[in-house]
């Protein structure tokens, strides 16, 4: 029979690795079940952190429809919340890459299995697998490229990664529901084969389509292969996590984009998302003579020079910068005027929502909206100093927003205009 010609990948005999089998695939599948679920949830959380339902400028996917059903007002407590959820999202995603690759390797004979479909249900399942594998690889690829600033994907990262996640997750849930019983069965079977003290009780050959009918002699045990996959994940973890933990551990993130060194030294020597040069900030507009902060509210418009701002009550807060790309800084010591004091200046004793505009020439978030709870938080500042020194141009001189738990891009730099109450 043609199907049994071992020179063809459609024949089970073509696949010679002694590692493939239901147990190996099931272990990897269960790890991905947990891991991908965490990735999906932290991804949704990151979208909520932008407060997309507050204003159009915060929303990169305004056509989301019911996919934004879960949105909620993003809190300011704990102040490290976004640092944690987004660090987890990116670091875990990178760490899971070896598990994903190993899982796909372990089931690749199925891709070539003939006949292509033996029933309608089977045909649908195979179409769903294209969404699962294509969608999964699409999500991992766009994520990994985006954190390296390699914007080669077709369109803006936000809609691609967000809608792609829903396509992938739809297929993922169906796949998990269909395969979980098989996975649990093969894991349980293996445990029963091993006695209470781990000794092997029986050595019946593992059944299943994935098992090679003519395996080559092993060069590593299945358990050894799993250690290998786990070790690869560990290597990626230890060379990445430092960019989210910061401090001396940043040096251990050897290949991560925000690992290694901090830019420059001194009080302003911490990680930057967009430099002043990149944002097109002209030093002439930010000088003492030229720059005025325009604050608008119920009682009209006030124009403040930096010197006038410095005569207002100054407050301090220790807050991190946490980027959607997963990296973050440790707490920096910011000093400036409370946003709620600026709201009071234009007639709002009870702070409303706030629309912030930057001098920045380009970039999706040169304008951003903050919700009333963020404005009211006493730690939310229009910062003028960081770590005891004036802000550097790259960190937003002459003034920048800093809000607890907000994603980095909502902490607008080079602020020009604050409009309270009208978004």
């Amino acid at each position: 029979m043609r199907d049994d010609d071992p020179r063809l990948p459609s024949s089970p005999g073509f696949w010679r690795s002694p590692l493939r089998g239901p147990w190996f695939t099931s272990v990897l599948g269960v790890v991905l079940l947990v891991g991908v679920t965490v990735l999906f949830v932290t991804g949704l959380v990151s979208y909520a952190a932008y407060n997309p339902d507050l204003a159009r400028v915060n929303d990169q996917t305004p056509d989301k429809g019911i996919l934004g059903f879960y949105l909620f007002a993003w809190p300011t407590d704990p102040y490290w919340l976004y640092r944690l959820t987004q660090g987890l999202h990116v670091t875990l995603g990178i760490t899971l890459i070896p598990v994903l690759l190993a899982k796909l390797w372990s089931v690749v004979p199925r891709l070539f299995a003939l006949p292509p479909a033996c029933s309608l249900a089977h045909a649908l399942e195979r179409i769903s697998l294209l969404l699962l594998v294509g969608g999964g690889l699409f999500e991992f690829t766009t994520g990994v490229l985006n954190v390296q600033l390699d914007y080669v994907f077709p369109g803006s990262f936000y809609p691609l990664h967000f809608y792609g996640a829903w396509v992938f997750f739809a297929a993922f849930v169906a796949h998990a529901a269909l395969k979980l019983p098989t996975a649990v069965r093969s894991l349980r079977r293996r445990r029963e084969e091993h006695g209470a003290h781990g000794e092997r009780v029986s050595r019946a050959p593992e059944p299943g389509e994935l098992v090679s009918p003519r395996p080559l002699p092993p060069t590593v045990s299945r358990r050894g292969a799993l250690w290998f996959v786990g070790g690869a994940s560990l290597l990626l973890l230890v060379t990445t996590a430092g960019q989210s933990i910061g401090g001396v551990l940043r040096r251990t993130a050897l290949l991560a984009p925000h690992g290694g060194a901090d830019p420059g030294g001194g009080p302003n020597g911490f990680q930057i998302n967009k430099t002043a040069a990149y944002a097109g900030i002209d030093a002439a507009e930010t000088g003492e003579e030229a720059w005025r902060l325009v604050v608008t509210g119920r009682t009209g418009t006030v124009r403040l020079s930096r010197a006038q701002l410095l005569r207002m009550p100054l407050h301090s807060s220790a807050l991190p910068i946490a980027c959607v790309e997963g990296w973050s800084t440790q707490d920096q010591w910011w000093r400036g005027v409370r946003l709620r004091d600026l709201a009071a200046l234009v007639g709002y004793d009870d702070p409303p929502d706030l629309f912030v505009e930057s001098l920045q020439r380009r970039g999706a978030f040169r304008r951003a909206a903050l919700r009333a709870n963020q404005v009211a938080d006493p730690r939310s500042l229009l910062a003028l100093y960081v770590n005891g020194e004036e802000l550097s141009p790259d960190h937003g001189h002459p003034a920048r927003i800093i809000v607890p738990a907000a994603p980095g891009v909502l902490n607008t730099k080079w602020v020009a205009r604050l409009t309270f109450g009208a978004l």
Partner: protein
Amino acid sequence: MRPRPALGSPLQILLLACSFALAGYAGVRLFAGDWQAVALWLVGAALLHDLVLLPLYAVADRAVVRALGAAGRRQRTMYVRVPAALSGLLLLVWFPLITGMVDRPYRSATGLSADGFLARWLLISAVLFAGSALLLALRGLRLRRAAKRRRPVVH
């Protein structure tokens, strides 16, 4: 009489129909922009992995196993496979930074030098291969010592 096409599990059909409906709802939005390019990326990612990346590393692995087998060293495969795969994995994940293809955007966005990623990857690879070689040498030494101990002393 021709056999009727089988239907399969109705529960499975319902589940998959539900999954397709949700994927369709999101998919319409995913394809709202340049739909051809997005479809190319989505399908291309699966094809590139299944038909290019996986066969490439599988063939490379089989070549290594065969070569070591011919030299009677088949059981040492992992000492080559592990460092090579880890080094390749790091390159696969971080190739935009390592190859320097994002030098300019990286420099202007982060204010950091983009040099050094290639050097760091090469050094990590060197450490991985050296570590594996060291383990292999230690194993050889231990085996030789054990063999010597077992050999009867001849006067």
